[in-house]
């Protein structure tokens, strides 16, 4: 039996072009990023590395220190939860507006793409604005957001919350809109045919379809937010991070070890909780 003819696509030169570009990028990055594994094997390098590692051992486990760290630990959790909540509040509406099928064709994808006049202009404007805002929010690193919010509202957990809220809002909105894009309209049509109104269709047909996916992704982002809230502390945005920064500045590397262990436990805990929630969906 003869094989069916191959598609023309397989003769394209693009795979080779991109392959070549990729190899060049790797080679060039190796040179420019000054990658030098030899440093670990030279006598001086080994010594530095050893001092760094031994300096961190054993972790600081005195009761007073641990007691002092309870508050920053809780603060880190609170920053991540509040930050993620704000991110959802930003990401959901913007993500909805940034979904092209939803913005241009409506809930059931029922209208034609090309509209007319003011109404269409408004749709294009809102869609573009939402996409632009989401891009802006997520292309500025949360670290930079935190730095700006510390300037704006002072030291403490609040700038951390705002930084996570805005930066993660941008990421959530982008992924939400992709989830919204993939909603199956056939159940919606069936619900409409029972005489249901717009909002009823939304809550009975649309929302249950997106809820598991957006919950799952939001839980994953919350996990990341726990880690991020520690980094944000380095610029003065509260939590464990701020304690790490202080301990490093004081050369108390034993304390840094303890703090990293706490952070590890927090991230592992968040991981566990989010896996549990996702398994329930």
């Amino acid at each position, binding site marked *: 039996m003869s094989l069916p003819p191959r598609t023309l696509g397989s003769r394209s030169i693009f795979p080779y072009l991109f392959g070549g570009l990729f190899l060049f990028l790797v080679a060039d990055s190796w040179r420019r990023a000054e990658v030098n594994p030899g440093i670990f094997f030279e006598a001086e390098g080994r010594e530095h590395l050893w001092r760094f590692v031994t300096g961190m051992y054993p972790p600081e486990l005195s009761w007073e220190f641990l007691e002092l760290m309870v508050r920053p630990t809780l603060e880190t959790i609170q920053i991540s939860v509040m930050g993620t909540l704000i991110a959802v509040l930003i990401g959901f509406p913007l993500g909805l507006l940034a979904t092209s099928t939803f913005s241009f064709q409506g809930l059931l994808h029922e209208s034609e793409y090309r509209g007319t006049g003011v109404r269409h202009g408004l749709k294009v404007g809102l869609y573009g604005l939402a996409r632009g805002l989401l891009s802006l929010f997520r292309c500025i690193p949360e670290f930079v957001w935190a730095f700006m919010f510390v300037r704006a509202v002072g030291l403490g957990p609040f700038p951390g919350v705002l930084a996570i809220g805005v930066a993660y809002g941008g990421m959530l909105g982008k992924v939400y809109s992709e989830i919204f894009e993939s909603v199956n309209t*056939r159940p919606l049509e069936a619900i409409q*045919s029972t005489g249901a*109104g717009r909002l009823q269709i939304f*809550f*009975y047909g649309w929302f249950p379809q997106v809820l598991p996916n957006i919950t799952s992704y939001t839980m994953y982002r919350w996990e990341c937010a726990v880690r991020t809230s520690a980094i944000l502390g380095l610029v003065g945005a509260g939590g464990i991070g701020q304690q790490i920064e202080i301990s490093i500045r004081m050369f108390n590397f034993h304390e840094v070890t303890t703090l990293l262990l706490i952070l590890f436990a927090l991230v592992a805990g968040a991981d566990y909780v989010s896996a549990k929630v996702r398994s329930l969906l």
Partner: protein
Amino acid sequence: MTGSPQYHLERVRKVFGRGQVALEGFDLQVAEGERVALIGPSGAGKTTLFRMLNCTIRPTAGRLSIGGQEVAELYGRRLREMRRRIGTIYQQHNLVPRLRVVHNVLSGRLGSWSLLGSLASLARPAGLETAHRALTDVGIGEKLFSRTDELSGGQQQRVAIARVLMQDPDVILADEPVSSVDPSLAETIIKLLLAISDHTGKTLLVNLHSTDLALSYFPRVIGMKAGVKLFDTAAAQVTPELLQELYSGHVPENGAGEPSREPEPRRIAV
């Protein structure tokens, strides 16, 4: 058992976005309580016709009236009220998979519920007994609290029928209701629909892939091909020659066959 006219279509024409003519010069009269089967090759416009009959899309031209009301004049609340009186069972994939069966069944009531009432029902299902009775009537009462995507294709089709029972419409439209289930189950489901129509006197229109089911269970059979009506007659009058003509030039698909899914058409906004 025939009464006043339920559907009245005159020279109905439907053209989709890029000038595709899906339906042309279509006339149809269906009386209250009548049971009609539509047959024809895929792409004949049967699904398009049904989506006009249940007020999902509007005709491009021609007249469509339901129970004496011109559909062209209906908007907003009155349009929704008209939709409430027409129940539709689709081929498949028209239940919300993540919802529990009870909510899919109760969604048949949305046309009669307020927004707040329907939201409250998502938390605490309103009318559990009626939902359970509807499910029992279609033979899967025990699935009330199952998740819909855990049911088999045939069971999901029964859920869709239970939803229509909850809706309690004047007309039941079934668009290829059995093309995704095996033949023995297909017969059961068709019999179930006929029994419902029998008990309640509801008008029943069914799109069918299987000419055998159409001819053996429905008094009136309509043959459609390429957007026009080829014949509309009593089942006994449908000759092998007519069927030959209906399906000539059409290559049968494997198995149950797929319905044509038209490009996203213009639907009626609420």
